[in-house]
C-alpha cells in the first residue's frame, strides 16, 4: 500500500488520500449537476425546449426550504419535503403559463418565453426575498464531518451520491416500468399519436415538468447544505453547468445527463485539485469542455439517434 501510494504520488504529485478526497468531492458535485441536468433533458426530450428557467426553479427551492425552517419554524425534514413539493408545483405552473400557450408556436417563441420566465423568477426572488444572500439552514446530522484515517470528510459528501442514486433508480423505474412513464416516452416521441392512443398529453407534459423540477429541488437542497449561502442569482451557474452536462451527455437522454453531470463534476474538482494555480478558471472548464464536445461529438456522448428507420 505504501509503495502504491509512493508510485501514485510520483506519477501525479498528489498522495492517494488527497486524490480520493477530491474524487468523492467530484462525485458529490457531479451528483448535484446530474440531478439538475435530468430536468433539462426531460423537458428537452418532450418539448424540444431548453428550459432556461430551470436554474431559477432550483434557486426557488432553497428559499422555500429556508422560509420553512426560519419563518415557519418547521423541522428541517418537513421543510425540505415541502420545498420539493412546492418546486414541483412551480414547475407545473411554469409549463402551464409560460410554455403551454406557445406549444404550437415556432420554437424560437417558446425559447424566448423560457428566457423571460428565468428573468421573472430571478427578479421576483429579489423583490420577495431581498437581494442580500441568506444562510441556508444547517442540518448538523448531515453536515458534520467524519474522520477517515488521516482525512476528515463531510458526511454530506457521501449522503449526496446516495440520495442521488436512490432518486435515479426511482426515476428509471418510473419511466421504464409504469404507465405514466410509458405515456411520457410516447409523448416525447410523437405527442399527436400519443393523444390519439388516449394519452392525456397536457397532463403528461405537466408531470414531466413536475418530476424534473422536483429532482432539481432535491439537488438544490443538497446544494444549499453544501454551499450554505443562498441568493436570487445562485441558480444561474449551477443551471448553466447542468445544462452543459445534459448537452455533453446527449440532450434528451436521461442516462446521458447523469453521465455528463458526473464528468463535469469530477472534471471540475480534479482540475482544481491537480492544477491549483488554475482554480480561478474553475467555471471556464465546463464551457471549454462544452466547446470541445460540440466540435467533435455534437450529439453528445450518448448521442440521440438522428436517423430512424420508417
Amino acid at each position: 500500500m505504501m509503495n502504491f501510494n509512493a508510485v501514485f504520488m510520483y506519477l501525479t504529485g498528489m498522495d492517494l488520500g488527497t486524490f480520493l478526497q477530491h474524487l468523492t468531492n467530484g462525485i458529490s458535485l457531479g451528483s448535484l449537476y446530474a440531478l439538475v441536468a435530468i430536468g433539462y433533458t426531460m423537458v428537452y426530450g418532450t418539448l424540444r425546449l431548453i428550459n432556461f428557467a430551470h436554474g431559477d426553479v432550483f434557486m426557488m427551492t432553497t428559499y422555500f426550504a429556508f422560509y420553512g425552517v426560519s419563518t415557519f419554524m418547521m423541522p428541517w425534514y418537513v421543510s425540505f419535503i415541502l420545498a420539493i413539493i412546492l418546486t414541483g408545483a412551480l414547475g407545473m405552473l411554469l409549463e402551464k403559463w409560460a410554455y403551454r400557450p406557445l406549444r404550437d408556436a415556432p420554437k424560437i417563441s417558446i425559447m424566448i418565453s423560457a428566457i423571460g420566465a428565468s428573468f421573472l423568477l430571478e427578479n421576483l426572488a429579489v423583490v420577495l426575498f431581498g437581494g442580500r444572500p441568506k444562510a441556508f439552514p444547517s442540518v448538523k446530522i448531515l453536515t458534520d464531518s467524519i474522520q477517515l484515517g488521516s482525512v476528515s470528510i463531510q458526511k454530506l459528501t457521501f449522503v449526496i451520491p446516495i440520495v442521488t442514486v436512490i432518486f435515479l433508480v426511482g426515476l428509471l423505474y418510473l419511466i421504464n416500468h409504469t404507465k405514466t412513464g410509458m405515456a411520457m416516452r410516447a409523448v416525447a416521441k410523437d405527442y399527436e399519436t400519443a393523444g390519439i392512443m388516449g394519452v392525456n398529453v397536457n397532463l403528461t407534459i405537466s408531470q414531466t415538468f413536475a418530476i424534473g423540477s422536483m429532482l432539481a429541488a432535491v439537488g438544490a437542497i443538497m446544494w444549499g447544505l453544501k454551499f450554505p449561502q443562498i441568493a436570487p442569482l445562485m441558480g444561474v451557474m449551477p443551471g448553466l453547468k447542468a445544462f452543459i452536462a445534459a448537452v455533453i451527455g446527449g440532450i434528451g437522454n436521461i442516462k446521458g445527463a447523469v453521465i455528463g453531470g458526473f464528468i463535469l463534476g469530477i472534471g471540475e474538482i480534479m482540475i482544481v485539485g491537480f492544477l491549483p494555480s488554475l482554480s480561478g478558471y474553475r467555471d471556464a472548464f465546463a464551457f471549454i469542455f462544452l466547446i470541445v464536445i460540440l466540435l467533435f461529438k455534437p450529439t453528445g456522448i450518448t448521442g440521440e439517434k438522428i436517423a430512424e428507420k420508417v
Partner: protein
Amino acid sequence: MLKIENLSVAYGGIEALKGISLEVEEGKIVTLVGANGAGKSTMLRSIVGLVKPKAGSITYQGKNLFAVKRHDLVKNGIALVPEGRRVFPDMTVLENLKIGAFTRKDHQEIKADLEWIYTLFPRLKEREWQAAGTLSGGEQQMLAVGRALMSRPKLLMMDEPSLGLAPLIIKDIFNIIRKIHSQGMTILLIEQNANAALHLADVGYVIETGRITLKGTGKELLDNEDVKKAYLGESVVAKK
C-alpha cells in the same frame, strides 16, 4: 355511426375540404379514395381533432365530436391507424401494443386481446421484444393496426395502410382488414390504392380536390368509367 356534414377545412386561406358529407354505417367498410392532395387525410385529421374545421359538423353516435377531447376518442370507441404508421420506434412491439390499450383497466381482457392480435399477426409475437423502429415497413403497419385494435374500437379508421408497401404485403394487410371486418368491426378506410380498397368496401366515396364527386357501392364504383380512367388504369381492370 359516424356522420360528417358539410365539412370545410382551410389551411391559411387554401381550402382543403370544400363542404364534404360522408356517412359510416355500423358494421360496414366505408372507403374514401382519391389522389394525393385531394383532402383524404385532412378529413381524418379533422375527425381526431388535429385540424380545426372552418364549417360543418361531425357526429359520432349522435354526439358532437368537436366537443370530445382528443385523448377521450379511444374511450368513445374510435381508433386510428395513422398515415405513415407512426409506431413508437424506441418502444418494443409489446409496449406499442400496450399503449394502444392505454385507457383500459381490464387487465385480463387486455391479455386476451393481446393474444388475439398475435393470432392475427403471428409476426408480431415473434418480435415482441424488438424495438418497433427496427421492424420492416409491413411489420410496422401490422403493429399500427394491432395497436389500434388494442383499444377495442367500435370504429377503426385507417389512413393509407398500403402506403409504401410491397404488393404482396398490401395483399396481406387487406386480407387482415377483411378478417377484422368479418368479426364485426366498422371500418373507415382512406386509400390511394382505389382498386384494392373498392374491392373490399361496402360503400365507397371518391374525393377530388376537396369535394366528394362520386358515391356508390364498391362494385358500382369499380365499374364506373370515370373511376376506371382516373384511379384504376385500364390495364389493371382488364386483368380482372
